[in-house]
């Protein structure tokens, strides 16, 4: 790859990273905390591309032929950088959904914060927060109050629906599901990967995930409302 082509790849890669960072596209793949680093690295790549072009343009004509011989061994492997570029811009794959959730055990850990719920009834809680309080606190911090939470639907092999939220630690490669079972007034037809906002109450009912024996708490559904998928489909542990 010659320097002009290298500069083009650097420029396009930097541009793609900036584009993903400035739209909400990056939220499909990494945590929002990575945004500053992502934008900075995109800017560095673009500056590197511009500087490379500048030096290439200013390089004396006589030196060009001489230098190319030296550059022939410039890595072929660099061509592969075009792949993530194309995947990010043209394909933009969606975050992991029910396909992954069915095949992965629930990843519920003991929560850090079991302090009192914010005011309001129904009170809005993250799905992971609800699951943590239901399992490790046996619902005592929830009491009789109604909870509103959201997630996407995943059906296990027997067709039992779960409300799922993927939890992200670093990037989508380590995304893991946290599952909550549904009981009470469940809508008759639930499509996998459709998003629902569920209002319900704590129930002591629990089951275990056959994949990893992880505990899956239930929520007693009072009302289920289809909603569009949020910008950031992941929940974070912190």
């Amino acid at each position: 790859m010659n320097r002009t082509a290298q500069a083009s790849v650097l420029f396009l890669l930097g541009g793609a990273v900036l584009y993903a960072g400035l739209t909400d596209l990056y939220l499909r793949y990494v945590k929002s905390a990575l945004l500053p680093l992502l934008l900075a690295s995109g800017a560095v790549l673009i500056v590197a591309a511009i500087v490379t072009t500048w030096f290439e343009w200013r390089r004396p004509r006589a030196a060009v032929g001489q230098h190319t011989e030296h550059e022939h061994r410039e890595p072929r492997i660099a061509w592969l950088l075009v792949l993530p570029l194309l995947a990010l811009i043209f394909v933009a794959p969606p975050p992991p959904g029910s396909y992954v959730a069915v095949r992965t055990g629930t990843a519920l850990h003991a929560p850090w914060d079991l302090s009192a719920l914010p005011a309001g009834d129904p009170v809005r809680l993250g799905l992971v927060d609800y699951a943590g309080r239901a399992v490790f606190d046996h619902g005592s911090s929830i009491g009789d109050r109604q909870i509103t939470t959201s997630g996407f639907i995943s059906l296990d092999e027997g067709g039992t629906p779960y409300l799922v939220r993927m939890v992200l630690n670093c990037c989508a490669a380590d995304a893991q599901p946290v599952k909550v079972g549904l009981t009470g007034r469940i809508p008759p037809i639930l499509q996998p990967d459709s998003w629902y906002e569920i209002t319900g109450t704590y129930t002591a009912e629990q089951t275990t995930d056959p994949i990893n024996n992880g505990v899956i708490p239930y929520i007693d559904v009072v009302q289920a409302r289809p909603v569009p998928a949020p910008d950031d489909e992941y929940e974070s542990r912190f």
Partner: protein
Amino acid sequence: MTTNAAPTQGARREADETQGWQFNSTLVLSMLLLLAVAGQGPIRRVLSEPVMQGWTTVFVAVVVQALPFLVLGVLLSAIIAVFVPPSFLARALPRHPARAVPVAGVAGMVLPGCECASVPVAEALVRKGVTPAAALAFLLSAPAINPIVLTATAVAFPDDPRMVLARFVASLLVACVMGWLWQRVGRTDWLRPPTRPSSAGSGRAAAFWGSVRHDVMHAGGFLVVGAMAAATLKTVIPASWLYTAAGIPVVSILTLAVLAVLLSICSEADAFVVASLPQFSPTAQLAFLVVGPMIDLKLFAMQAATFGRGFALRFAPTTFALAVLTAAVVGAVLL
């Protein structure tokens, strides 16, 4: 006339060839992008299968996650290469290699990132005349014992703070032993002399940006290889295998160690992944945490690119064996 024309023609052909090559790679790139734009419909259809979708998501995610850290490492590497005089590094590290190794290992604590950043930095250290044994100790310890990674480990194992201590001790131990081992049996000719554009004659700015461009293109290409391998394995390995292996004592340690190599997860995230596999023993989990930042598919590809295949083929298996062994011993003592 004919006698005169021959050399001129030869010279012209040579010039044409070099020009043609330049023309070619830019042209190929443009064609490739045009093809992608034209064929995006069919490509999207193929990739909308759940399996392919999962693959592409993991692939893009690994690259997007690692790229900022790669750029950070590349910038640091270029700064070391261009602006830090060799005499400074010589003064900062003990003269004797055997004592330089643990100092470099502990110095790994200051590079706050994951493994993608440490490869170019270690390479710059070697080029600046730091003894390879010390640079390799730094390469192995930096991604495992920096504060961000240790904090993430503490958060992932809230009931078991000893896991943080065990990870720190075992990782530092492996890094130092590998450094000393290199000093004992390592040969400099295993390390490929870096092929990079000579910066002689050009200014510091040109050298700096030349180093950045070269490292991003080079290490970035191998990062893509690693990401493809990790995405493939993550999609292919059935989860049920893991749960069977967890019950068998020695197998469980080896399973998680191999899994750490195959999955190539960022060292800032690996603790959370392994914490959600509670059916494995703490020692097996420790093996995952010690092996992962030191050697995985992505790192192997990047090490082979930076230091040469001959080096990587010797270094990677030794690191793996030593890391598993150390994790088993430290796990038995501390956990």
